[in-house]
């Protein structure tokens, strides 16, 4: 029987951690449902690692509580929490073979090597590492070490699996492969995973849910798709993918949409202007791939003209900088197959987009 991590839910309530006069975590609350894969995403110093370490039990919070299902585990030492953890850099014991490393969590629970053998083998099979069971960690590649670290964290059927920058030490191609693998492992085990990363691509591709942290607070939580399509703030919009930001004055509301004035230009935006500042200004985030580039005036609701400033070919797409008279320079991404546009600097072009392409965000 392969080791199956159990499925539990994790609740973090009003966690605060203060170092000196600096709050690494500032009143953080978070709920992770049974069997979900959540990623804590943020720049360095945002508190994501501190949050993971508090959950793991290595850092004592200044205040707040951690619940596993209904049980308060805030004051449990790490070895009693029974959370599997994959460390940044893996922390495989260099003096033990792969098999001994995976045996370790069972060994400290009183199982002999022989008793543990079936579970160790099943778990190493799960990550396709059984054939290297006799190697020392130093003889393995980064990807192999990562797999062993996963097996070691899963073999004792932990209540939940914590991953601290699990892929950051690997090169790009390997990272992409392991993203698929972690996803499929998560699906097969049905366990609750909590991962930490600063890599937005990793967060988007692996998780069911992302919590974006900033300066010790949770900025926004949601599904990858949700966060990407409907960022609440300028920070989220620019941290997750690229965005153009346009500030305009609210000029009127019309049913399900509103009008903005930016210089001489009028923009129609779907939704309600709930993010409008006190002076009536609204900040709009426009994803580069939602803007359409054309040589002649397009038939979209919003239209602005400009000229090409610069263009970069990226294989699957062109990244184009377009200087407009009314709303500054906009970044536009066009699929590479959509040819017929000359990207010579100075060429006049049109940019068009529909009212639902943008999203109104808060400034901070």
């Amino acid at each position, binding site marked *: 029987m392969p080791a199956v991590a159990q499925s539990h839910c994790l609740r973090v309530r009003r966690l605060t951690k203060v170092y000196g006069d600096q709050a690494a975590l500032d009143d953080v609350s978070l709920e992770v449902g049974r069997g979900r894969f959540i990623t804590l995403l943020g720049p360095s110093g945002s508190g994501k690692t501190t949050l993971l370490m508090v959950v*793991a039990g*290595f850092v004592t919070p200044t205040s707040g509580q951690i619940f596993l299902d209904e049980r308060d585990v805030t004051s449990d030492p*790490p070895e009693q929490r029974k959370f599997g953890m994959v*460390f940044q850099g893996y922390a495989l*014991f260099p003096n033990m073979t792969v098999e001994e490393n995976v045996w*370790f*969590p069972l060994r400290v629970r009183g199982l002999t090597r022989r008793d543990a053998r079936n579970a160790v083998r099943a778990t190493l099979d799960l990550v396709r590492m059984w054939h290297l069971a006799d190697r020392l960690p130093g003889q393995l590649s980064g990807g192999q070490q990562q797999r062993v670290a996963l097996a070691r964290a899963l073999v004792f059927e932990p209540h939940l699996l914590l991953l601290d920058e699990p892929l950051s030490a690997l090169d790009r191609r390997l990272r992409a492969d392991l993203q698929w693998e972690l996803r499929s492992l998560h699906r097969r085990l049905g366990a609750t995973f909590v991962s930490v990363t600063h890599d937005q691509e990793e967060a988007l591709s692996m998780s069911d849910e992302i919590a974006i942290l900033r300066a010790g607070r949770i900025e926004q939580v949601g599904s990858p798709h949700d966060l990407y399509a409907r960022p609440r703030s300028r920070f989220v919009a620019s941290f997750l993918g690229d965005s153009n930001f346009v500030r305009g004055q609210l000029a009127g509301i019309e049913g399900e949409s509103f009008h903005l004035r930016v210089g001489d230009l009028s923009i129609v935006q779907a939704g309600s202007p709930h993010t409008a500042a006190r002076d009536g200004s609204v900040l709009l985030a426009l994803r580069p791939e939602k803007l359409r580039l054309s040589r002649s005036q397009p038939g979209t609701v919003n239209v602005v003209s400009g000229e090409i400033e610069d263009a970069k070919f990226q294989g699957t797409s062109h990244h184009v900088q377009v200087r407009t008279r009314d709303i500054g320079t906009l970044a536009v991404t066009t699929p590479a197959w959509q040819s017929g546009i000359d990207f010579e600097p100075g060429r006049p072009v049109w940019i068009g987009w529909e009212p639902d392409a943008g999203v109104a965000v808060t400034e901070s």
Partner: protein
Amino acid sequence: MRLVAALPANRRAYLGLTAPAVLLMAALFLAPLAQVLWLSISEPRLGLENYAELAHNPLIWRIWWTTLEVCLVTTFVSVSLGYVVAAAMAQVEERHRTIMIFCIVLTFSLSILVRGFAFVVLLRSEGVLNGMLLALGLVHRPLYLLRNELGVLVGMVHYGLPVAILPIYSSMRGIGDQYVRAARSLGASASQTFRLVYFPLTLPGVISASALVFIYSLGFFIIPALLGGGHVVMIAEYIRVGFEETLRWGYASMLATTLLAAVAVVLVAMSRVIDLRKMFGG
């Protein structure tokens, strides 16, 4: 191609630069050593008669036995205590660590004579320690802490401790807290973490510390002379007597050669277990 061809010539040039050091070593170190070896087979007349003494002089074996006993105990005590101090140093914050390292290095700069006499003052019957114990009523007559093996051990451990601490500490520094954290998160208690993870990882440091302390202590003669009061004669002291008092240079040289051989044996044994270059910081 040119670069590869250029290398050996360069090498030779660099080797030339090391010549002064090599010559200095040969003149000041290897030559006297060769002289000692020569003395041991040429004094009082050419032959192996000095070495024949090894076969039928029980005094040599008794002295060697005392030496090994004292050195082994010194090594064990120094490394055990040193492990605790090194572990503390690896845990405390940077500021405290600096102070601790300073204190340890400071002891190296104290003359061994000063240290020896300081221990005489502390340990003798009317000394500071006995005075305190008597005043507190913990003992009714002074303890014999000097002129015996105990006194020698105290002095030698004091000398061996810093020698033990530094290699152990450096092996601990290399570990970092990630392995300990990993062990704890996998369910290991503090003592299991120490036994299964931390101690095995510091073992190379422990082994090199043991070898260093043992080799250092083999050559001690001032401390045994001062604190043993003639009751604990170790090999180095016996060699000194041979050179300076009984003037049996050939015999003393033979003893010195056995000491050299003992050190070599320890080093060879160690080299099977750990990297010697690492141990001497090379």
